[in-house]
C-alpha cells in the first residue's frame, strides 16, 4: 500500500468521530453555507468581532479573578496591588477594560448595520431578539464590572444607576434593595455585583449567545433586498468555511493588535478609593455608552407635567428600548419587501440623538 493512499492522522480521527457522531454531516452543512458578496460585505464582520472580544473578556476576566478580592476593605486594594505589583497585572486589567469598551462599540456597529440593512426581516425576527438580549446583558456586564474596583467614580455611577432602578413605579424599591443588597451602595452591593458580573451574566450570556449563533448558522447570512432581486448569475457569494472564517480570523488578529496598542498606550486608570462620606467629584460621568442617557437626565427639568423628570426619562428610555426590541414586528411591510419610511427615519433619529448627546457629554 502506498503512503499516499493511507489516511492522514487528521482524516483517521475524523473517520473515528464520524463513525460515532456522524460529524461529516455537520461539516458538510458548514461547507454549503455561503456569505453573499456586495458593497455591504464589511458589515458582516462586526458580529464576529463582538464574539472575539467576548472571548477576550472571558479569558482576561478569569485572569483578573486570580488576584481580585471583592469586599469594601479589599476590592480597591487588590486592584491596586494587581496593577502595581503583579507582573503584567496592569496589562491584563487594561485589556479587560479596553476590550469591554471595544466590544460594546462592535455590538453597536453590528446592531445598527443589521437595522439599516433590514437583516432582521422574516425569517430572522428572533435573531434580532436574541441579539437585543445580548446587548442588554453586555450593558449589564459594563455596569456591574464598573463598580468592582471600588473607586470614587464607580461608587457614584452605581449610586446613580441603581437609584434610577429604584425610581421605577411599584417594583422600584424592591429592585433597589435587591441590587444593592442594602438601602445604600455598600460592601453588600459590591458582593452582589461581583456575583452578577462573574457568574450570573456569563451564564446567561453564553446560553443566549449559543442560541444567537445557532440561529445564524441555521438560516445563513441575510442578503440585502436589492441584491436578492438581482438575477442569479449576477449574485456573488463566498463559502463561509473556510474562506470567510479565515478572513474573520485575520480580522480578529488585527483587532487583537489594536486592543494591545490601546491597552499599552492608554493603560486603564484606577481612581481614588470610594468614600461614602465624600461629595461626588466634579466631572463625574459614566462610560461612553451610557453617556447619552446621562446627558438626557441632566437636561430634564425637575418635573414634567405631574411626573418627576428622572422617572419621565426612565419611562421614555424604557419604551424606546421596548420598541427597539420589537423592530422586526413593527416593520410590517418587510415580508413584501416594502419598508416603512418612518422606521428608517426613526432609526436615523436614534443614531443622531445618541451621537449628539454623547458628544455633548464629552464637550462639557
Amino acid at each position, binding site marked *: 500500500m502506498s503512503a499516499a493512499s493511507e489516511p492522514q492522522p487528521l482524516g483517521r480521527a475524523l473517520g473515528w468521530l464520524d463513525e460515532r457522531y456522524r460529524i461529516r454531516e455537520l461539516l458538510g452543512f458548514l461547507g454549503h453555507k455561503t456569505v453573499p458578496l456586495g458593497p455591504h460585505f464589511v458589515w458582516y464582520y462586526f458580529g464576529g468581532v463582538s464574539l472575539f472580544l467576548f472571548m477576550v473578556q472571558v479569558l482576561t476576566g478569569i485572569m483578573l479573578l486570580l488576584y481580585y478580592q471583592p469586599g469594601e476593605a479589599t476590592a480597591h486594594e487588590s486592584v491596586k496591588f494587581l496593577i502595581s505589583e503583579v507582573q503584567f497585572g496592569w496589562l491584563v486589567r487594561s485589556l479587560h477594560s479596553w476590550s469591554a469598551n471595544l466590544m460594546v462599540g462592535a455590538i453597536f456597529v453590528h446592531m445598527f448595520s443589521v437595522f439599516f440593512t433590514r437583516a432582521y426581516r422574516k425569517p430572522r425576527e428572533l435573531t434580532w431578539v436574541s441579539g437585543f438580549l445580548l446587548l442588554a446583558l453586555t450593558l449589564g456586564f459594563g455596569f456591574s464590572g464598573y463598580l468592582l474596583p471600588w473607586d470614587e467614580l464607580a461608587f457614584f455611577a452605581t*449610586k446613580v444607576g441603581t437609584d434610577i432602578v429604584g425610581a421605577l413605579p411599584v417594583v422600584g424599591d424592591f429592585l433597589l434593595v435587591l441590587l444593592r443588597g*442594602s438601602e445604600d451602595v455598600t460592601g453588600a452591593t459590591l458582593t452582589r455585583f461581583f456575583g452578577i458580573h462573574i457568574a450570573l451574566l456569563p451564564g446567561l450570556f453564553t446560553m443566549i449567545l449559543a442560541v444567537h449563533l445557532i440561529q445564524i448558522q441555521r438560516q445563513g447570512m441575510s442578503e440585502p433586498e436589492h441584491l436578492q432581486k438581482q438575477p442569479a448569475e449576477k449574485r456573488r457569494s463566498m463559502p463561509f468555511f473556510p474562506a470567510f472564517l479565515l478572513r474573520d480570523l485575520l480580522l480578529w488578529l488585527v483587532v487583537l493588535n489594536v486592543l494591545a496598542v490601546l491597552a499599552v498606550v492608554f493603560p486603564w486608570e484606577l481612581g481614588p478609593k470610594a468614600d461614602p462620606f465624600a*461629595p*461626588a467629584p*466634579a466631572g*463625574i460621568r459614566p462610560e461612553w455608552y451610557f453617556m447619552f442617557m446621562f446627558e438626557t437626565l441632566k437636561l430634564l427639568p425637575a418635573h414634567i407635567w405631574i411626573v418627576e423628570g428622572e422617572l419621565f426619562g426612565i419611562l421614555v428610555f424604557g419604551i424606546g428600548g421596548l420598541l427597539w426590541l420589537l423592530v422586526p414586528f413593527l416593520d410590517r411591510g418587510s415580508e413584501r419587501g416594502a419598508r416603512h419610511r418612518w422606521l428608517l427615519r426613526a432609526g436615523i433619529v436614534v443614531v443622531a440623538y445618541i451621537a449628539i448627546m454623547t458628544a455633548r457629554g464629552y464637550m462639557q
Partner: protein
Amino acid sequence: MPEPVSRRRFLDLALGGGVVAWLGTVLYPVFSYLKPPATREPVATSVKVAKLSEIPPNSAKIFKFGTKPGILVHTAQGELRAFNAICTHLDCTVQYKPEWKLIWCACHNGRYNLEGINISGPPPRPLQEFTVHVKDDEIHVSRV
C-alpha cells in the same frame, strides 16, 4: 344546574394547582433569600460635627449622620445650616460651592440655595434640613 366536572378536568385542575403550589414553595424562599435582612441601625438623632473655629464662613463640611452623609454650611453671612447631603435627584452626595454660594451636585449639575431649596437642574425636591446648635464652640446637628 352546573355542569358536572369530568374526571379529566378535575385531574387537570389538581395537577395545575399542584404545579402552582410547587412553584410558590420554590420561589418564595428564593425571593426571601435575595432580599437582605433589615439591619437595625441605631438612628442617630444628634451628632457633634465640628468646632466652630474649624469651619470658616463661606465653607462647608460633610459629616457622618448615622449611616448617611450630611452637609454643614457656614454661610458668608455667618449663619450655620445643616442638610441631608444626599441629592434628591439620584442619590449623589452634594457639595458646597463657595464661589457660587450654593450647594451643588456634581452628578447632574443640580443646584440648591442655602435654604436647601432646589433652584436649578434636575433635583425634584429640597434637601432635608437639620437643626444646628452651637454649644461651647462645638457644633451639634440634630434631626428636626
